[in-house]
């Protein structure tokens, strides 16, 4: 399982979207930890180069500040990158 974390104290809901869940905003809701504004979720990932982003309140797309960025997703926006190689992740 791979853990994703984002700080969004003002958000009412945050979702993780990526090629691993068909970029579906409804599939991977993140869980808020107390009052800190920290949102987390853990998902299984296969080996590969995974693109992902966080969607805040269903409309605002955020990149992961702790991950590298893939500059162009074909739609003029950037996504974050999680590299999973055999035995570990990048």
């Amino acid at each position: 399982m791979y853990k994703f974390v984002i700080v969004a104290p003002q958000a009412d809901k945050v979702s993780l979207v990526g090629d691993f869940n068909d970029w579906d905003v409804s599939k991977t809701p993140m869980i808020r930890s107390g009052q800190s504004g920290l949102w987390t979720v853990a998902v299984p990932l296969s080996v590969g180069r995974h693109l992902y982003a966080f969607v805040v309140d269903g409309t605002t797309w955020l990149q992961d500040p702790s991950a590298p960025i893939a500059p162009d997703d074909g739609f003029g926006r950037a996504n974050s990158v999680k590299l999973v190689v055999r035995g570990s992740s990048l």
Partner: protein
Amino acid sequence: MSRSRLVGLATLLLSVSLPPFVRAQEPEQQDRMAKLDIKTRGAVELLVDSAVAEGLPTQPLRSIALLGITRKADGKQIIAAVHRKLIALRTARVVLGRVDTLELDAASSVLIAGAKPNQLETFKNRPRGRSDLSAFIVWADLIGRGVPGEDASSAIARLWEEGADDATFQSLWNNVQSDILRGLNPGTALQNRIREAPGRPPTTKGPQTPEGQENKRSE
């Protein structure tokens, strides 16, 4: 004819009459694809059917279409992005021959990132059982983060020819990434780190083991 046989026959006829694109999709994907306008969906279906006919993986194409839907991208943009991926998958297949789906997808990402098809040729003849997936993943990412394409290509090819394993590619990526975060120019970061990468004599058979290789991962 019994009722169960009729139902079975109807199911068979229905599944045969559906285009391959529709048959191969998960129900949830079909629902979301329905958000596309008819013209865009038809064009995407044609591209995916082409991939099916050529024996290319279709999931990378669907994933791009679904990203476009979620992004609320224009139909023309979605078609262009799916088409670009299909071309890259096709080119990677021509250069590399038969490789598994993950490797082909990763190789196509290298091409989309800006590598030239002839730069993939290093990976065409490889020992049985050796995967080039890690090399492709790191290569595409290095280009995406600003390392000049020629530098990234020659560095990855050199490591590959020297028999680098997954851990070596992983540590290279980690070290270059940490240098970039420290403010180093991406190209310079790669050049510095590639000099430190463990060299091994070129191999001609069998997958590599990590024995004897230094893991330079810095994190």
